């Protein structure tokens, strides 16, 4: 586990756009405890910006009416929340047991060769970023890769190559 406590402060105020704002208001009614909105609100932010800044966390805390420290806790606990800007195409490769056994490493090595980035890095042109993540919950169809949140199952190097081809 790496330290995720250093947040990026953009110096610019954050707010949900109209679409996320409406979604927030729709979701908040579902929860008897308002604090339960921390995770959905973090997702909405990530959907909107691609990552979550200190300002966004403060916004979420104030919007929900909870402590900023609680949002900070949740956002740093779950590694699927990006705390820094990612590439245009953010690739997540599952590194938990089933995917590991079914050669996720081959995919990671292929991506390193093809795009030139290791897990945790962003390509120089800013188009790609790569992350190894914990279990994505699709163990039956391991190995799995997420591309900008979309699942691609039973992956291998050929399929990864084909997938990358669609992006170029």
């Amino acid at each position: 586990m790496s330290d995720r406590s250093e947040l990026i402060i953009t110096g610019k105020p954050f707010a949900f756009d109209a679409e996320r704002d409406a979604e927030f208001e729709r979701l908040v009614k579902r929860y008897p405890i308002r604090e339960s909105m921390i995770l959905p609100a973090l997702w909405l932010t990530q959907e909107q910006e691609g990552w979550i800044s200190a300002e966004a966390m403060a916004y979420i805390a104030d919007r929900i009416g909870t402590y900023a420290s609680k949002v900070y806790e949740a956002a740093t606990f779950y590694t699927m929340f990006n705390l820094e800007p990612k590439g245009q195409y953010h690739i997540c490769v599952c590194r938990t047991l089933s995917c590991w056994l079914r050669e996720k490493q081959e995919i990671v090595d292929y991506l390193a060769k093809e795009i030139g980035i290791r897990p945790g890095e962003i390509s120089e042109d800013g188009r790609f970023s790569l992350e190894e993540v914990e279990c994505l919950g699709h163990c039956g169809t391991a190995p799995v890769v997420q591309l900008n949140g979309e699942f691609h199952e039973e992956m291998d190097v050929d399929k990864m190559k084909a997938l990358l081809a669609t992006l170029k």
Partner: protein
Amino acid sequence: MAEMVKLFVNGEEVEVESGKNLIDAIGAVGIEIPHLCYHPALGADGNCRMCLVGIEDGRPPVVPACKTPAREGMRVQLDTDNIKKIQRDIMEFELINHPVDCPICDQAGECKLQDYYMAHDLQDSRMRVPQVTKGKKMDFGCGVVHDQERCVVCGRCVRFTRQITKTGELGIINRTDAARVNIFPGRPLNNRYALNIVDLCPVGAMTSRDFRFKQRVWFLKKDKGICHGCARGCNIFIDHNREKYKDDVIYRYRPRLNSLVNGYFMCDEGRLSYKEENENRLTATMIEGKETSFEDGIQRIQQELNQAKKPLMLISPNSTLEQQWAVKRIATLYGARCSGYSEGYVKAGDGDDFLICDDKSANRRGLQLLDIDCERTTLEQALGECDLFISFDNDPFRFGNNEELRNAIAAKRVIAISSHENTMTEISKVALPVASYSEYDGTIVNINNVLQSFTRAVRKNEERIDILEVTRLLGGAVRDNAHAWPGMKTTVEELAEVHPDRIPAEGLQLSVSEESHVSA
């Protein structure tokens, strides 16, 4: 009284309060169950696992004592090999990434990790990999300095800010071995009780900027006292030390449990008010700007009193009941009027709904009980008529000047009997130094009519006597604290049933008539 139950600890029968958790219940009869995250004021969290105990016949095989209520017939096991191994293993986990910088750590000597290592661990490190490094000496605000590497992530500090102050500045960030306590960027600690975190922290992760590196705690003498910072009268430990060739100096106050008054905590302002006991003290007797002996000072005051036709005595709302009584008696002796006027001690609107009071004096209730007039109008009238003004450690200008009153007092012959240098000693013809509250015994009544007694903690190289002793030297009839009580008991209805030598440790709740509830 709570219901008692009989249970067995390591096979031995003990009688404990029912309903309490095992840590508190068994702890009350002197058997300690090691724990890091549990604190009675913050409740059970169950995250540290240090308090796991076995319950014979019970399921599951081990349970956290902090979350297990004491029940009749329970058979608690603390000394089985299994439990000892768990404690040793938890300690090993806690110490994997601990810097073990005890020689430069302020907590050394009062650290749970040190204590538990000696009691439950005593093994060498088996780690052959680099330690996880984290933040050092981080400024969390409010004088709290954090060392993330020393932290055991028990979460007491986090729960304190969420449950007690409800400000929620702290959180546990990251997870697994990267977990650490932090503030949200740009939102540091911002509450008036933040330094309690330093006491709550079982290890040296939270230290006080004020106390850091000042003293090794084992050199400090820890005497019981009562904070005089406001009308709450929080129970405290006065931690002081006389270093070789130096004077007895107070280094810190810490809150002391009193469920009737302050619980486990105290405010930061009160905590740091120890400085006022060390600093700005009136040390020399001054007559008309010249330093003289204490005896000459007393003699001069006596002369002034004998010559004066209408003396006026100002009694302090910070003085003890006994002192106030002694001054009241000596006022009668010299035909003086006395006043307890002390609006200067009130900071209107400064109090809150927890511990801090508007009234920054410790014993205003005492003035009321002893029927000493505190009205401004009466003081002004008496001031107009008087030809000698003696203040018994009452500083009417404590929080801010009042030009009009200052001029009115300064126009008189002023004698200031004072523990500190202040406006009164400045405008006085005679200034006589006396002891402050850490240097005498006495009894005070707090804002909720809890009568508490306290004893002397500090002995200065140059000992100063207290106000009661001054009145005795001036010919007063009250010889000492005990001697003040028969008179007070017959005069003051509320004190009639009080036995001064039998005041409970938690204080005595006085039943005070409605009339005396009206106060400044």
